[in-house]
């Protein structure tokens, strides 16, 4: 540890006289190691002990593949819905005036602050065949709860703040001069939006989409109540992990988890590569 801290100490830059470098960094790394790194490394430890064929079998079993496919599809769809409507919400909040705007702006973050189980039971009740909204779906012969559609609804709820909170600050920072210039050059409103505003906003929209997508892939609490959890139909990977843990199949659970983890890490990396600037800003905003 001492050696590591010595190594990390950067002597080339101007050094500060403030005390506590070794103590603060040492404590930070010790705590990070104990709470995050060691427990997380168990995942790799467990899968590395199971051998390749067992790993392959656990991750490519038909039931597992079906759950990956479902998860990917519903997460993508819900992120897409949020990209479209979230963009409109952000636009409306920044550009227009309407009653209760301030309160609505505060409430956008509710899906972050509410326990997922609470969201889950509310949505399941709302969209069940006898629920306030579910009954209308029922009338036209669509099953909303206990179907993939129900999962999409839950994931859309969970991902709602991401696109709004990524697009909003960028939209706020756009100078009016840009649009005025476009207008003075004879562009109509739609042309201005399409060729001037949208290209500026697109990176933040894409970042918000990716954040919502990545969050949806791992979501558990809000989905479990509304999905019905039927293997091959509405079973998502986190649920499959739960089932395997209950059967004490730790290796199988760890194998599925590793695939999920790698998927979210790839997405995380994509976000960073897509737009360093936007994602940093959003991280500050969302926290």
């Amino acid at each position, binding site marked *: 540890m001492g050696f590591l801290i010595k190594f990390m100490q*950067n002597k080339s830059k101007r050094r500060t006289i403030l005390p506590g470098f070794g103590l603060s960094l040492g404590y930070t790394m010790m705590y990070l190691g104990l709470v995050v790194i060691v427990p997380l490394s168990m995942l790799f430890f467990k899968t590395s002990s199971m051998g390749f064929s067992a790993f392959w079998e656990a991750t490519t079993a038909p039931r597992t593949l079906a759950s990956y496919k479902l998860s990917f599809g519903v997460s993508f769809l819900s992120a897409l819905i949020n990209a479209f409507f979230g963009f409109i919400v952000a636009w409306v909040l920044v550009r227009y005036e309407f009653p209760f705007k301030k309160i609505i702006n505060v409430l956008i973050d509710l899906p972050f602050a509410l326990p997922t189980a609470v969201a889950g039971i509310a949505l399941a009740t709302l969209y069940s065949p006898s629920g306030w909204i579910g009954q209308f779906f029922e009338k036209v012969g669509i099953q909303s709860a206990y179907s993939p559609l129900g999962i999409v609804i839950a994931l859309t709820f969970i991902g709602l703040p991401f696109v709004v909170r990524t697009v909003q600050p960028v939209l706020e920072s756009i100078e009016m001069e840009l649009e005025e210039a476009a*207008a003075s050059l004879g562009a109509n409103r739609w042309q201005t939006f399409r060729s001037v505003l949208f290209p500026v906003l697109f990176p933040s929209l894409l970042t918000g989409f990716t954040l919502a997508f990545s969050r949806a892939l791992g979501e558990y609490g809000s989905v479990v109540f509304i999905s019905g959890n039927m293997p091959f139909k509405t079973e998502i990977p986190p649920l499959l992990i739960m089932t395997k843990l209950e059967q004490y199949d730790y290796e199988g659970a760890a194998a599925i988890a590793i695939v999920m983890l790698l998927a979210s890490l790839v997405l995380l990396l994509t976000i960073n590569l897509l737009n360093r600037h936007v994602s940093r800003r959003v991280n500050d905003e969302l926290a």
Partner: protein
Amino acid sequence: MMNLLKITRTKTESRFVQGLLIGVALFYLFLLLFLPIFLILVSALKKGFPMYVQALRDPETWVAIKLSLLVAIVAVPLNVIFGLFAAWAITKYAFRGKSLLLALIDLPLSISPVISGMIFVLLFGANGFLASFLAAHNIRVIFAVPGIILATLFVTFPYVAREVIPVMKAQGKDEEEAAMTLGANGFQIFTKVTLPNIRWGLFYGVVLCNARAMGEFGAVSVVSGHIRGVTTTLPLHVEILYNEYAFAAAFSVASLFIGLALFTLVLKHIVGFRLKREGLK
């Protein structure tokens, strides 16, 4: 003149488009956000206020509330201490691997709650890495309170650090260095100079971390084992009530979380406003 008129007109959308977009946005938010909240409050009070109070005064609910408070009381201070140390190290010094450290601090945010719980099962569970050691010393971690606390620690790990780091960074280190040259020691600098400067960011970090600690469901669900009256935190209690078709009671308990969430969000905006005014954001 004609041109000027045209410019002002094309600077914003027609009233019709404005109305349409506002309508679409509000309809979307109403359907997805406001209706579920409304449903929780209506369902909680469906059988009248006395029943609502009774549901909250149920002994099992009380046990769940106490456990959730206990988890928060242990997890939040530990993450606060970490957050302050991490922010100090990251914002006051230049060192190798800083961006990697920042990425690692954010890591728990991008991990599925179920995985966050299962890693502790792999470590402390019946077939886990430390199983024989724990059995020999008769220590229970999984399906017991320590496991719940550990999983909560993992999930809420980044929140305080993420709130404090940007605020401390914006403050710079001139004031601390001035105090240093005036002969203050490290502890004095931290408590007398740094802490007052970051108090709002820290305060919101604590509240957010607390809301997450009390509300965590997925990770805690994996390690808890749902032993009634022993390892059921408040969100797990909501789940149990719901699964037993005690809907009114489930929504009554859920309404507590609406209150906690609203408190957290309002505070977030007040703190954000203050930080903006102090020029820190």
